[in-house]
């Protein structure tokens, strides 16, 4: 089945000439739930920003075969002191449907109430944002993501400071998205959670370590390889010249592993 949602072609992302995600290749299929795992500074959030189009690639491309994108960033620029109600925040999710000048209809309001019900926030419509707890805010943001009705959903550490029960509720929601043939990429640190709920995993350490079925990726060998990477920038690092197509850069995984990665994808 050639049902590809995202295709990384030698994608390199970074800041000020330093690569943070190096020569990433691979594809993500429609309706697949993928966890993105890696240490701090391994390029997970950078990859998310690259897919969302907020960060332009240094080289390579990220080919997109999807209609709509929903992106829930890790460091939200959300102003929690802004005098808005929960319903104002969640209804931002209609943006792609209603556009710049559109108005929100009665049908939209019913749909919004349904989404609030799913995340367990019924009755919170009129509550000001600054009165929400961290977990309630995260639930509200998930309700907004639901309304966006996106084909590709990017979640960057969505369970930070969220309690166990809420995580279970939100995981159920994420699985429902995947069942609706939406592609979900989710950055996570909790390996137990990944093993339990995410069929596929992308392990990254500024370059791809492994990508495939979770049980094949989260091996102790891969994890120790992912831990030993250079986190700091090196001002004297040589320029990477390996941009020629068909050229296999020396810092790529060795050939055998590359084949395994390709087979897993």
């Amino acid at each position: 089945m050639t049902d590809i949602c995202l295709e990384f072609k030698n994608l390199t992302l970074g800041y000020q000439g330093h690569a943070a995600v190096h020569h990433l290749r691979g594809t993500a299929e429609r309706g697949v739930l993928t966890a993105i795992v890696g240490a701090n500074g391994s390029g997970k959030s950078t990859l998310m920003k690259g897919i969302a189009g907020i960060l332009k690639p240094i080289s390579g491309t990220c080919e997109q075969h999807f209609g709509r994108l929903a992106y829930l960033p890790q460091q939200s620029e959300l102003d929690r002191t802004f005098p808005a109600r929960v319903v104002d925040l969640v209804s931002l999710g209609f943006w792609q449907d209603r556009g710049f000048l559109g108005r929100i209809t009665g049908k939209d309001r019913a749909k919004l109430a349904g989404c609030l019900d799913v995340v367990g926030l019924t009755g919170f419509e009129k509550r000001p944002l600054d009165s929400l707890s961290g977990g309630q805010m995260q639930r509200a943001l998930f309700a907004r993501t639901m309304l966006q009705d996106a084909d590709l959903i990017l979640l960057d550490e969505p369970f930070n400071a969220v309690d166990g029960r809420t995580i279970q509720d939100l995981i159920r929601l994420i699985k429902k998205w995947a069942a609706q043939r939406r592609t979900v990429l989710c950055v996570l640190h909790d390996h137990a959670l990944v093993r339990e709920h995410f069929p596929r995993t992308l392990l990254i350490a500024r370059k791809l370590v492994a990508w495939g079925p979770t049980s094949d990726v989260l091996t102790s060998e891969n994890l120790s390889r992912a831990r030993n990477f250079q986190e700091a920038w090196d001002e004297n690092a040589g320029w990477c010249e390996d941009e020629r197509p068909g050229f296999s850069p020396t810092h790529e995984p060795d050939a055998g592993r590359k084949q395994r990665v390709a087979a897993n994808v």
Partner: protein
Amino acid sequence: MYDSLLGPFLQYGFMQRALLGSVVLSVSCAPVGVFLMLRRMSLTGDAMSHAILPGAALGFLLFGLDILPMTIGGLVVGLVVALGSGLVSRFTVQKEDASMAAFYLISLAAGVLLVSWRGSSVDLMHVLFGSVLALNDEAIGLIVSIAAVTFLAFGLCWRALVAECLDPLFLRSVSRFGGPVHLLFLVLVVLNLVGGFQALGTLLSVGLMMLPAVAARFWSNDVRTLCLIAIVIAVVSSLGGLLLSYHASMPSGPAIIMAAGGAYILSTIFGRRGVLASALPSRRHRSA
């Protein structure tokens, strides 16, 4: 009582014009001030009001004390400063407060140089403090058009403005309008400052924009209500300031701003979210 409150406006045409001009300006300025405050750009209004000076001064030097050239000059320079600092912050790592400070200081220095080059200090006082009691038809027409443009823009872009303040990164991920909406908002700020500069002068025009907005914050926690309360405070301050200036023979612009300042102090103390409310918390509470 009746005479002293209504009399001045019934008897004198210049008071009627002053009232019309400052009330329309209040209705237009106050919501702009609310959004400036919510974006933590309260001092940007102040900086922008200084930035307008060289444009107004250039109009004054070339055409004398005539409203239209001074307004157009102020508008052009204000937009250059607003767009310049907006663009620098969009495309470089520098934050908007820093680029705004740089642009407005350059602009202010240029303005003072221009005014001191020709023209006496009396004229400078006029440019800086305005004269709401001398509004002519041109000036009133300008203020009314600016109010109309402001309300049209708010009506069309309300959701986008709220989204840009509330969650700019989200807006950027779903739409390309984030940047343009921000620039449009800066244009509205300049327009309203230029409108206010007719009535109150460059130094005080920002007062009618910001004081009612920051006073309103002590009363409400909802954007729409905030705008309405700010408008009411601004209109009442204009009325009160004009009466004060009439009866006590004070300059009208500062009198209006002082009235708004009084509204701010009262709100700070007695507002629903003000000092007294937080200093004297009620021990009564609901069980859920």
